[in-house]
């Protein structure tokens, strides 16, 4: 085989890189992030399941409705109305970005750019 040695070394390096994350985390048990939920509000704008899986879509829609369509009141499935605002509605209950948003986002390794502009409730430093 032409270049046999080089090819095999290449394959070994490739497989090694491919498996490195598994090797790195072997033996560590996964721990669910623990969120701090609002103390005096039990219900979010929509159901828990919906918010858990679809909050990003909802926020996307909220953004377009409020900013682009100028409709700033959201009526949920139960007919309850909310002002469409990340800073003034969501974060009035979820009083800490660090204890709520960041917990899952860090865990999932995502970094949405919301807070590049929006001001988190704990303030800026």
């Amino acid at each position, binding site marked *: 085989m032409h270049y046999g040695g080089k090819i095999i070394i290449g394959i070994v390096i490739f497989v090694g890189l491919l498996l490195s994350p598994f090797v790195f985390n072997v033996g560590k048990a996964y721990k669910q992030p623990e969120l701090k939920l609002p103390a005096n509000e039990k219900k979010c704008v*929509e159901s828990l399941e*919906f918010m858990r899986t*679809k909050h990003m*879509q*909802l926020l996307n*829609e909220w*953004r*377009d*409705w409020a*900013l*682009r*369509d*100028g*409709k*700033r*009141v*959201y*009526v*949920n*499935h139960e007919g309850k109305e909310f*002002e*469409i605002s990340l*800073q*003034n509605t969501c974060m009035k209950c979820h009083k800490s970005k660090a204890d709520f948003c960041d917990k899952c986002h860090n865990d999932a390794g995502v970094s949405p*750019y919301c807070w*590049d*502009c*929006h*001001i988190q*409730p704990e*303030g*800026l*430093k």
Partner: protein
Amino acid sequence: MKNNRRSFIKLAGLAAAGLCVAPKATLASGGGHSPVKAGPKAEHAKRWAMVIDTRKVHTEEDIKVLQHACHSVHNVPDIPTKQNIKWLWSAPYEECFPEQQNPHLDDDVKGRSYMLLCNHCENPPCVRVCPTKATFKRPDGIVVMDYHRCIGCRYCMAACPYGSRSFNFGEPRDYLDLTKLNTDFPTRMRGVVEKCNFCVERLAKGLQPACVEASDGAIVFGDLADKDSEVRKVLRENFTIRRKPTAGTEPSVYYII
């Protein structure tokens, strides 16, 4: 098992097709009604317009007050370089009306400072050129920006004949007093263009624009399409001019001279 998978794929395909066809709004509502509406106190108009009485606001100090009202409510930084951000600022006559010069203008008019801001044009060139619809005109005539969508190409700045737009060359928060932010309103991020938004967020709550509120009656704001409105009354009774009429943009900001 095989059947299951096949039906799953079919369903998934149908769902995907449905998602493409169905309007976005059905995501959260599902009840057939629109899940959103304007707020109960929201101000409505066919075409918002502003009339600035330059007989009443005409010094740099007057305009500083208005600028402070605007910039503090919108978290606009003050950057001490030529890369500054301005939503509302002041300029002498010849900078405000370079096409309406007159070498023998009366001292009063010539000596005044004029308040500048986005003109919220009827035919906004910035909207025409924006490649992502990040800048768009609302049905009520206000030209607004979607900072989430702006790619920072600055074509709108080249297109605006009034120099009303600013670009965040650097991180705007570096130049803001973070302890004095208006926490009801966001800041902007690096790399996007920004400008006056005629206080859409305040109009949505039934409030007048911040500069109008701070002007003590020297700025009138209202619906140009309503002939009984305060702006129309003021326009009827006073001589007004607009900036660069030859640009064909039809500004919504009028100046009483």
